[in-house]
């Protein structure tokens, strides 16, 4: 019995020793990667790791020992044939081990997306157990990822975090709530026979000074911030072009991504001025129909509007006028929808997942169309109906312009 007991104790200690604390990394042996950037560099892949300098980020904390200072983040750039090669090479220039589990976003340079295609990234990102599939994907508009990742932003010490928050904040303007996640892109390209879109990001004013910490002292914030722009559309994994803001919003509505949206209607009852409103609770319903071999889609959009601003002479108090405003908003939205649909159909890129929709509802038709889906998609007849109800006029009834 004693032998048995000793044996099990032995086994347990062997088990513990064997693990030998393998896989154990102290916090001060780690570099928290907050964002990854990918650029093309002479046919190779340049990977940028934006890493958090914990001492600099959490500065001002009582406990932090002196000496921990410097910028909040640093960006390392490494070039390699593949992402993994770059990561491997990075280990020679990095002072600590990279921790990938807190990557919030991956920024792809426009060049890279156009020439190499984004497919090459996914395998490493998915196979690594630390990286989350749910991180944001962004394309650096007319720029490189490096330009985006080498910027010190005010308010947020960590630009990656600031980027993520910006995506959230801009949801009402661009319509794309929660951004576009990496796993969605994978699923779109490979799982749903659909052409992906990825949100774009650009520097508001290009200024080299923004790379410097000193610049944070400057009160002017515009030269050190990003702007979330329209969507970049892809054909499979190669980037093809950009949607403007209007088209982006159209895309968001069709894909039920828009939770809230600002609308500025230009026509204002024949007088000068604008009517601005916030649309909430947007519900989109897309139904495919096949009639006599002709494919058609019906897009039904419903929503509630809240009046935000009136700068022209309308009688906000009268229900009739409100109906007019509703109608104007509907018109605006329809314009946005048709604009993006036209563009997608002319480029023959199914960015809406219409193919998947057809498959869901009429799998047998889908099999028929699958071969040259791009053609069928561009020939499809798309009808849109928008139905907006003005729910409230806000905290004020009459506008100043009425008097």
């Amino acid at each position, binding site marked *: 019995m004693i032998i048995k007991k000793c044996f099990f104790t032995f086994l347990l200690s062997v088990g513990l020793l*064997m693990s030998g604390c393998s896989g154990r990394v102290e916090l001060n042996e780690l570099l928290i990667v907050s964002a990854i950037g990918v650029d093309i560099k002479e046919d190779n892949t340049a990977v940028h790791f934006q890493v958090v300098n914990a001492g600099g980020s959490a500065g001002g904390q009582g406990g932090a020992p002196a000496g921990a200072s410097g910028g909040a983040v640093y960006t390392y750039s490494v070039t390699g044939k593949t992402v993994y090669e770059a990561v491997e090479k990075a280990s020679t220039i990095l002072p600590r081990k990279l921790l990938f589990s807190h990557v919030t976003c991956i920024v792809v340079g426009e060049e890279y997306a156009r020439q190499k295609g984004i497919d090459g990234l996914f395998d490493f990102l998915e196979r690594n*157990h630390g990286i989350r599939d749910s991180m944001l994907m962004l394309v650096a508009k007319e720029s490189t990822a490096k330009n985006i990742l080498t910027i010190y932003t005010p308010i947020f010490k960590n630009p990656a975090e600031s980027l993520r928050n910006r995506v959230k904040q801009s949801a009402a303007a661009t319509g794309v709530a929660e951004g576009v996640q990496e*796993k969605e892109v*994978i699923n779109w390209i490979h799982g*749903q026979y659909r052409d992906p879109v990825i949100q774009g990001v650009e520097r508001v004013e290009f200024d080299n000074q923004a790379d410097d910490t000193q610049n944070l002292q400057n009160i002017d914030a515009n030269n050190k911030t990003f702007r979330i722009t329209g969507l970049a559309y892809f054909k499979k994994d190669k980037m093809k072009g950009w949607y403007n803001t209007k088209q982006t919003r159209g895309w968001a509505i069709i894909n039920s991504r828009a939770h809230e949206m600002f609308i500025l209607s230009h026509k204002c009852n024949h007088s000068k001025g604008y009517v601005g409103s916030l649309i909430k609770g947007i519900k989109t319903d897309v139904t495919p129909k096949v009639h006599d071999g002709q494919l058609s889609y019906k897009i039904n959009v419903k929503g509630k509007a809240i009046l935000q601003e009136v700068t022209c002479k309308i009688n906000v108090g009268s229900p009739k006028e409100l109906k007019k405003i509703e109608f104007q908003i509907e018109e605006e939205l329809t314009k946005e929808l048709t604009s993006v649909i036209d563009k997608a159909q002319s480029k023959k890129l199914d960015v809406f997942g219409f193919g998947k929709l057809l498959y869901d509802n009429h*799998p047998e038709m889908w099999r028929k169309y699958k071969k040259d889906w791009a053609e069928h998609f561009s020939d499809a007849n798309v009808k849109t109906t928008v139905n907006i109800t003005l729910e409230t006029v806000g905290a004020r009834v009459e506008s100043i312009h009425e008097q």
Partner: protein
Amino acid sequence: MNHNLNHWQLSLIVFSFIMGSSLLMAPNLTSFFSGQDAWISMILAVIIGFLINILWLFLLKRYQFQSIFALNELTAGKIMGTAVNITIVFYALHLAAYVIRNLSNFMIANVIPESNPWTYQIMIILLAVYTTYYGFNNIARVSEFLNPWMFLLFIGSLLLTINKFEFSNLKPVFDQKFVYIAQGAYSTTGFPFIEIILLGSVFVYVKQKEKLTKSYMAGLLWGGAVLIITVIAVVGVQGDYMVKRQSYPTYELMRNISVVSILERIEVLITVVWIFGILVKVVVCLFAAVSGLKHISGHTSMRVFLLPCAILIWSMANHIHENMMEFTDFVGQNWTMWWFTLYAVIVIFLIAGIMRGKDKQAGT
């Protein structure tokens, strides 16, 4: 060593056994063949499993729920019976080895890749030996205490993913050919619904035999229901393409949880549920093996066999397959038939025994 358990504890053991290691594997195994119709495969597997177990229980009931080892000797004669018993012992050890390998595979692939798989294997085997040492009653009590928590934890985390659920991921329904659906069901039938016949070595210790069938089936159906729900949730949230891509889709599913910023990244919780299921499964296997050996040897205690069995399980877990893909491939293709063969052999002997009137001798 106290082996007694009541019918409620039996239900929970069956539930954990079913849910156990299949929790992480079932979505991938089914979806690999049947795509978005994986849940139909799963339902099919549960139904087949149900029928298989109903027959099994019906036959055992005719024999007053004697231990399967004793029944084999009774129905197949001394020599053949012993041969079948040795086979059962081997099956049990083999299954335990697989389950443990499965655990270490998972830990290495997803949780701590830098670590040594042996650590996890030795630890879980030690736990299994520790509880088996006290008799089956111990694991029954442990599962009685932990199961409700595990269930809550699992259901709770599933609920947290519900905001990401999209019905379009499950559409179109019945699009796959029936062969594929059946193929998806095939792998999940053996694993875990036929494996559970190892619990036949425990029935003799159940206190209220008249409630046994009902509670066993209840446990089985609950476990099956949880598996079905898991498959639906996994496919519904991630889409079948992503499920096929991932090694452990249920774990990936939990990575999607983000409700408030503190309830992010809690996927490790699902590991607790899963490891508990694995523990129960290994204990049942180990118990079946040692009680089989006890029966064969005619010894009074089963503790002597624990140590060699534990070592054998450990070396088998490492040695039987060289890498993870070979393992997955083997489980996907041969597992169900391999277990069904054992099931069929025992069932044929039992039926033959009934025809020869042997069931009257049992228990008297």
